[in-house]
């Protein structure tokens, strides 16, 4: 009987591998008139607490468009989720699995991990599918002439770092006052966390502040030593570049070592509810960048409740609608949908290929009126892109945690392109050389 069980198992294993080979031929998909949206998410593992709300927001918006508008100008949205677990190789597998689905293939990918973004960037040149990184990804990919398919919409980490430096500079009463000051960067030890370093060093040269680099190893629950060093060095400011459980841990350790939270500034991925709530009262006074206003209910959220949640279609809990990361997902989905709309004007109201959608992404023009129409008033700033500039104008604000909710500080901060642009150039050049890439001529494509 034991043997019998074994041979069964063998059979199962073989069947499994056999099945594995047969699947994946995209031909098998339903060929309806639909636009296919791949969804790379992580709802498990060390980063699930942040991955879940973003994924919910993203998926919910797609559902909303279908339920409220009957799709994008009549073209229904089809979508499929794939769990990356924030791991690069898994992300690549998901990408390969989803890129061919739907009648016209994937619309655009949101890798939701800088590591995965790096891997997908190489493939985008072959597959001609846009890689959308709303507020993450590689900073130099703003340059559309080299990175033909990356769209770091809303701003890159260089923008973010630049904004933070400006902000604390003004706090001190002018950037020149930063001379001799000490700024510590506590960062997630991954491509994501390392991105801002280049700019911070650049700025350090300009203003003469000392930059302290304190990497925190994945997943970031072990930070005692890091914060002891901070206690020893007593930096004037701490910039936090964390993700997942690392954020809350940092704030807790800051409490434990008595570092004033008021002097801590997080990137926009270190400023969500799951980051501060676990630290409880201790998080009071902690600041973080934000590009959409944080929580609260706008028109889009009301619609969401009406069309999706009241029908029991919601992905998450009703009360989580409007949380920072949820909104982040919402916005990401919205931008993609808008790009499709834009592209439909040029190519007609039919399912579009990734390449066609790219045109939409390169010609986004979402002004305040459009934002109002979308019900995002107060939740985002205008976005306009071109073939050369794939990011649009980067601007954000600072929010502060008052112990219960995020309070947005007045004043919008703009990244200083006079510093960033040249860095992007040189970095993009380097990449193009390394990869032996041909350069795009935007002028010609336009004409």
């Amino acid at each position, binding site marked *: 009987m034991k043997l019998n069980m074994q041979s069964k198992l063998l059979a199962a294993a073989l069947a499994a591998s056999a099945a594995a080979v047969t699947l994946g031929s995209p031909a098998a998909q339903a060929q309806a008139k639909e636009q296919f949206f791949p969804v790379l998410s992580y709802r498990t593992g060390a980063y*699930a*607490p942040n991955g879940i709300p973003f994924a919910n927001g993203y998926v919910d918006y797609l559902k909303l468009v279908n339920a409220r508008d009957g799709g994008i100008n009549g073209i229904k949205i089809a979508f499929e989720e794939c769990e990356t677990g924030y791991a690069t190789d898994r992300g690549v597998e998901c990408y390969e699995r989803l890129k061919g689905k739907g009648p016209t293939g994937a619309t655009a990918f949101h890798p939701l991990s800088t590591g995965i973004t790096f891997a997908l960037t190489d493939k985008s040149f072959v597959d001609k599918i846009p890689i959308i990184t709303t507020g993450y990804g590689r900073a130099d990919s703003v340059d559309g002439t080299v990175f033909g398919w990356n769209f770091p919409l809303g701003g890159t980490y260089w923008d973010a770092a630049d904004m933070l430096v400006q902000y604390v500079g003004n706090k001190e009463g002018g950037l020149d006052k930063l001379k001799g000051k000490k700024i510590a960067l506590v960062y997630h030890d991954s491509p994501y966390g390392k991105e801002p370093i280049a700019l911070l060093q650049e700025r350090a040269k300009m203003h003469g502040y000392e930059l302290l680099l304190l990497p925190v190893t994945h997943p970031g629950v072990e930070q005692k030593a890091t914060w002891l060093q901070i206690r020893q060095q007593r930096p004037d400011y701490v910039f936090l570049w964390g993700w997942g459980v690392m954020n809350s841990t940092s704030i807790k350790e800051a409490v*434990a070592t008595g570092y004033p939270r008021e002097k801590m500034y997080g990137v926009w991925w270190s400023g969500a509810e799951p980051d501060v709530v676990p630290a409880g009262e201790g998080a009071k006074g902690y600041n973080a960048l934000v590009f959409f206003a944080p929580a609260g209910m706008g028109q889009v959220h009301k619609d969401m409740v009406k069309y999706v949640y009241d029908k029991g279609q919601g992905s998450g809990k009703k009360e989580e609608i409007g949380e920072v990361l949820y909104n982040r997902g919402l916005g990401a989905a919205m931008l993609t949908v808008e790009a499709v709309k834009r592209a439909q004007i040029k190519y007609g109201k039919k399912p579009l290929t990734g390449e066609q959608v790219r045109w939409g992404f390169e010609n986004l023009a979402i002004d305040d009126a459009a934002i109002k129409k979308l019900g995002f008033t107060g939740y985002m700033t205008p976005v306009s892109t071109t073939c050369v500039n794939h990011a649009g104008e980067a601007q954000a604000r600072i929010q502060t945690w008052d112990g219960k909710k995020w309070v947005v500080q007045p004043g919008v901060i703009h990244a200083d392109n006079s510093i960033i642009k040249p860095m992007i150039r040189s970095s993009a050049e380097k990449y193009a050389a390394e990869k032996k890439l041909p350069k795009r001529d935007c002028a010609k494509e336009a004409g």
Partner: protein
Amino acid sequence: MKKHWPVVTLGTALLIGLALPLATGASPPGFYVEVLLGGLMAGVLYSLVALGFALIFKASGVFNFAQGAMVLFSALAVARLAERMPLWLAILCAMAIMVVLAWLIERLVLRPLVNQEPVALLMATLGVTYFLDGFGQTVWGSDIYEIELGIAKEPVMILERVFRGGILVNKEDYVAAIVATALVVSLALFFQKTSTGRALRAVADDHQAAQSIGIPLHRIWVIVWSVAGVVALVAGVIWGSKLGVQFSLAQVALKALPVVILGGFTSVTGAIVGGLIIGVGEKMAEVFLGPVLVKAFDLAGGGIENWFAYVLALLFLLVRPEGLFGEKYIDRV
């Protein structure tokens, strides 16, 4: 005739390294003490997890890779149950769950594999680890959860007169340390004094012999795994209340491996001392040695505490394979 000098040299090297920051004035004494305390705090927790390892290894000869997963699992259980019931009750229920778990593991994993070579058992516990990670997240969810022990998190200054700038400590750490120490002591007593403890030791020395003199092997195993489960629970609660209960707890617990190597697999004392050594060692290394290395080799940041423990254990293995307090074994032909 036993060669002591390598151990001695390694030991002295460590001590010198420990003293250096103070001697060279690289750090103000007050801060030095803080680092030391920080190290000890971490160390106590390492000891706790390591204790679980040692217990199980002693009694069942199993190198339980799943100890970390058990920490996570129990912590998740407490956190989620505490949402529906008072904490103390939640903890009791969690304990019950851990006992059931122990029984299941003994039944489904250990018993069929009895008298397999240790490496096979190690791999089996790897399997258990994966299962628990998945199962735990399925049952309890994979979000961050809170365990509120109701201890003030704000730090307090002490000894301002003794050291300039005083020493920063927080209550939480102390409570943690005290609880851990208490647990450790009681376990040590349990081992030395109670009859079950003696039975455990007998089993550890020789399974067949133990059985032949009528010690119920399987029950002993269940007991040990339960105890290990409870130890994991305590570690999980303490850790969880510090860091929030979350998937990545399991990974912190990996640190217990170098600890048991250092202390010797079979030794309770070893687990404790080893834990403290590792804890202090890695924090010291990170805070004082790290920056030096970064400057010297133009590294992209320190973070040496991630491997320090393991490399230390490795060096130690080379000079004294049986660990600080473990027994030596001889091959027979």
